[in-house]
């Protein structure tokens, strides 16, 4: 167990280093984009005088390194700073958005993870049956369609008939039931997008194990097929499945801006896209760090769970 804790600590340290590296990369990337905040905000109305005034007001005329260190100093003391564009505190801007994003991610995960696992197990159990083929074809078709198109299809089928709202207009005060109802279509769209990956991995991992000698042994003992899969194959297939689930969870947190736009869902993705478009560096940095942290933590969680699920690693001699 001690090694596990050491691993977690070591990985957290590495995660911090990763975040630092990412902040440098993002900052330089934004610096390299054409135009700065002053020009992007003023757009067609920009004149040399107003752009210059904007820059000096926001300190954009200072050297890039100085601005980066300023920002990093703020972060080190837990201060995300204020958005240069809207002059609002970034923590306030992000707080509402991040809870929406996590809500939608958890909502979609709560549907898709059990669904993918059950479908994957059943597909492995009834390998090459009509059910297996059907499940595969459906899952693969839905993952092959672009997300916005899936969204439009769901709106056409489920929203235009009046069953579910086409606009996932959630607010902070909404009761949970209303929220679940309002965000159903985006959650369903995301479910369709991520289920295939997890389902296919579950199926493949289990089928892979079904060929091993110890499964053959179990069969020969007369263990029923369902029990073989659940009690003998699944525990050994957990590690790859957990990893795929973690990757998809990270995607649900970070990669859903298209779904947010189609359903007008106020999540973190749109905040990031808006801020990149206007070169609002500090907001981009904050949002990117959150996304990167989500990846780091989910990967760490996956590794920890994979380790825990493997007695050989937990009780290493």
């Amino acid at each position, binding site marked *: 167990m001690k090694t596990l804790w050491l691993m977690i600590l070591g990985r957290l340290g590495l995660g911090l280093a990763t975040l630092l590296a990412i902040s440098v990369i993002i900052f330089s990337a934004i610096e390299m984009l054409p135009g700065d905040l002053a020009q992007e905000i003023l757009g067609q109305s920009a004149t040399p005088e107003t752009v210059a005034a904007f820059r000096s007001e926001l300190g954009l005329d200072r050297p890039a390194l100085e601005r980066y260190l300023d920002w990093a100093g703020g972060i080190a003391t837990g201060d995300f700073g204020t958005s240069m564009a*809207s002059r609002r505190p970034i923590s306030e801007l992000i707080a509402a958005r991040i809870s929406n994003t996590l809500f939608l991610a958890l909502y979609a995960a709560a549907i898709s993870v059990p669904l993918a696992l059950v479908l994957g197990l059943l597909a492995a159990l009834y390998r090459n049956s009509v059910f297996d083929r059907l499940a595969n074809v459906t899952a693969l078709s839905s993952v092959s369609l672009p997300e916005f198109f899936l969204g439009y299809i769901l709106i056409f089928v489920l929203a235009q008939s009046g069953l579910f709202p086409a606009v996932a207009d959630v607010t902070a005060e909404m009761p949970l039931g209303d929220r679940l109802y309002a965000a159903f279509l985006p959650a369903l769209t995301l479910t369709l997008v991520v289920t295939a990956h997890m389902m296919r991995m579950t199926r493949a991992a289990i089928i892979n194990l079904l060929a091993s000698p110890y499964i053959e042994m179990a069969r020969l003992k007369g263990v029923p097929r369902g029990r073989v899969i659940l009690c003998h194959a699944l525990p050994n297939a957990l590690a790859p499945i957990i990893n795929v689930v973690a990757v998809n969870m990270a995607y649900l947190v970070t990669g859903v801006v298209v779904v947010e736009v*189609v359903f007008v869902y106020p999540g973190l993705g749109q905040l990031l896209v808006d801020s990149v478009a206007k070169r609002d560096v500090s907001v981009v940095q904050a949002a990117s760090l959150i996304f990167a942290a989500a990846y780091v933590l989910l990967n760490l969680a996956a590794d920890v769970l994979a380790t825990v699920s493997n007695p050989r690693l937990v009780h290493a001699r």
Partner: protein
Amino acid sequence: MARHMKHHADPTRRALLGSMAAAGGLAALGWPGGARAAAPSRGGHVRYGVRGGSTTDSLDPGTYSHAFVRTMGYAFCNTLVEIDGNNRLQPELLEFWEGSKGAASWVFRLRPGITFHDGKALTADDVIATVQHHVRPGSTSGARALMTAIKGMERLDDLTVRFTLEAGNADFPAIFSDYRMMVMPARDGVADFASGIGTGGYVLKNFEPGVRASLERNPNYWRADRAFFDSVDILAMSDATSRQNALLTGAIDVMDQADLKTVHMLKRKSGIEVASTTGGLHYTYAMNAELAPYDNMDLRLALKYGVDREALLQKVLRGYGSLGNDHPVAPTMAYYAADIEQRAYDPDRARHHLKKAGLDNVSLSLSVTDGLYQGAVDGVTLYREQLAPVGIDLEIARVPTDGFWTDTWMKKPFVAGIWGTRATADMILSAAYESTAAWNESFWREPRFDALLKAARTELDESRRAELYRDMQVMIRDEGAAVIPLFADNVFALSDRIGHPEAMSGAWELDGGRSIERWWIKA
């Protein structure tokens, strides 16, 4: 002369007073909104789906640049001057304006008894602070360039301000109809935009940039004949298909900018009204007149005769617009010269001009971006085909929307551009065609034109003034360096439970941006 230029809010008096150029004299008598089909009724909650909203939006009117903030701004604020449903200027917060000294000195008198949402009375100080917000040294306002002519501001009494200009400008009040000129309350002499307090028909209850704005009717609104809804939500919806779906499913009642590719299908839906307004919104293909080969007048004419405007109107705008005649003065504007011959597609004539320019075959590159307007790239693609028989090979240089205004517009020698409506001919001409204009996108500098423009600003004789504006339109059409193929309509859709005046302004989307206070729910 002072009396002569006075323009008054009281419609019965207006006819007696001399014509204020931009107000169009007697034509403006149809008082706000024009004829109405049914009497508006009060009450109800309405939801808008509007494009443009971004997390980076702020309440500083100096940064306003798109439909979302315009729609929101006009709901909770007023401007000194408004553009009515017939695209004419009317005093809004003003009781009257009055110009003298060759239109170089202007007295603005506020209506008495108007209060901000927090109960503070509207005074001359608020007007001065508002203008100061845009013109002060270090101002970051996009409207700064509009007001460079202001030399001084003087508070005459509680309700009266006098502006002194560098040079006379009979259209000076028109600047105050700009959507960035929302009147803000003064706090210690500085305009306070951050509080979101205005004098408008609605109180801003909640503003989440890039998501929504929630507004409630201002019970103390100074206008009795406006602001009919009880409450309004404006949702930021950047995707046209999403807006359309939301309207079809009843999630919203009003959407701006219908997708022109599917608008004919939207029209067939029952319960939905597709409406359009005409204004000064126009598309340009602007050359840099200082660079070869665009410094050659004949090449410019070849490019002007080489565009099939009718085809562009039908294919790109699906008929929602009108033909441009290579000058920016719109048919809805005062001093539009209707008698100038409409330039038509004439490949032979274009070839003739190309030869005269000493170029038999030439390869040009036109920069365009998808996000500029609907069908921007399609239009350039058509233009390329139309220029082929002329002997001009037009290369389509597609650039990203991101960074377009910084890296492409006024940087590349031939660029597809767009101009929103201006209240008067003078405003668009001095914004984009005067030699010294900051946004002279075609780099066309013509002293004869500048002289005409300056003369027209102070000319008080109506027919002489119209003549000057006609000369300028002809000059830009024939000598200018921008192809102006189209004026585009604003096309939007609304639920048929929403009522609106018959005459809607084409200045900006949704009744000139003022639909929230002008429209109502049908009883």
